[in-house]
């Protein structure tokens, strides 16, 4: 028996216990569904309303996640603070994701430049003349940005189901851009959320609301 290994396992189990509520799965599922509804390319073209509604929907999804953690999970499961190593991993993830977001911003900026300057846009599109091939390239780039980002989240946050979510999100983004039909990503969003829903129901059954007033008031 190795004491160090056992303690590591104990810490890992305690850490992963915080994912038992299924809220992360529900949150990512909801994000994919919102993205599918509001960010796909409508026939009329993008409008600022699309972006505003998408941002509002993401905000609502995050609000639900936050409220679920605060009002459902924490009173039932309790609170825990992990050690310096976990904090370091969290900080590393923030730095890595910041780099990914910066790359995305550059790509979006290039796209905006192309829209604002038809000459530049024409130069871009002359590289790939076939519309289908262009869609395929854009869909692949989108999936290759979102998928690995989620894999990084799963790795640094020690979240095993995150790898499944990463594959599903990448597939959703690819299909959303390439086929431009929201129905497929909506189905994928539901597939991501479904295990979360099962876990959430199980969590509510396994973790009844606890009261600690008596211990708290004891002298």
């Amino acid at each position, binding site marked *: 028996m190795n*004491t160090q290994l056992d303690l*590591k396992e104990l810490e890992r189990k*305690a850490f992963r*216990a915080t994912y038992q509520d299924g809220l992360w799965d529900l949150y990512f599922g909801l994000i994919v569904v919102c993205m599918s509804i509001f960010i796909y390319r409508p026939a009329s073209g993008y409008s600022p309303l699309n972006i505003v509604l998408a941002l509002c929907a993401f905000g609502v999804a995050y609000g639900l996640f936050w409220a679920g953690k605060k009002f459902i999970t924490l009173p039932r499961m309790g609170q825990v*603070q992990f050690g310096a190593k976990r904090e370091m991993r969290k900080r590393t993830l923030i730095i890595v994701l910041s780099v990914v977001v910066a790359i995305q911003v550059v790509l979006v900026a290039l796209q905006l430049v192309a829209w604002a300057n038809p000459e530049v846009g024409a130069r871009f599109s002359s590289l790939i003349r076939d519309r289908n091939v262009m869609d395929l390239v854009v869909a692949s780039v989108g999936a290759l940005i979102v998928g690995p980002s989620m894999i990084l989240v799963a790795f640094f946050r020690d979240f095993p189901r995150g790898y499944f979510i990463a594959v599903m999100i990448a597939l959703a983004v690819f299909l959303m851009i390439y086929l431009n039909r929201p129905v497929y990503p909506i189905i994928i969003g539901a597939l991501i959320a479904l295990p979360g829903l099962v876990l959430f129901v199980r969590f509510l059954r396994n973790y009844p609301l606890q009261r600690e007033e008596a*211990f*708290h008031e004891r002298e």
Partner: protein
Amino acid sequence: MNENEEKTGLGALGEIDRLVHEPARTAVMALLYVVESADFIFLMNQTGLTWGNLSAHISKLEAAGYLSVEKSFKGKRPNTTLRLTVQGRQAFRRYALQMKQAFRDFEA
């Protein structure tokens, strides 16, 4: 330590910290050893101990100076945060080493 204990080496077992050497308290200390801090409910869920049981063990560990107990309110809800003291960390580390040493040749 008497002469017989010295011959068999069993005297070392007598040095083991009995406060830590109780399954429920070992579980509580092991869990608090690997995290920074945890509240009462989290400990209860992770160790599977009942409210009364955990409360009694925490009191003993607190009295020995192994645990620090911080009582506060999160909104209107009372919250009890527990963490191992430096003394508690040392005691747990010492206990783990002593147990490891005591059964060093077990598999041989």
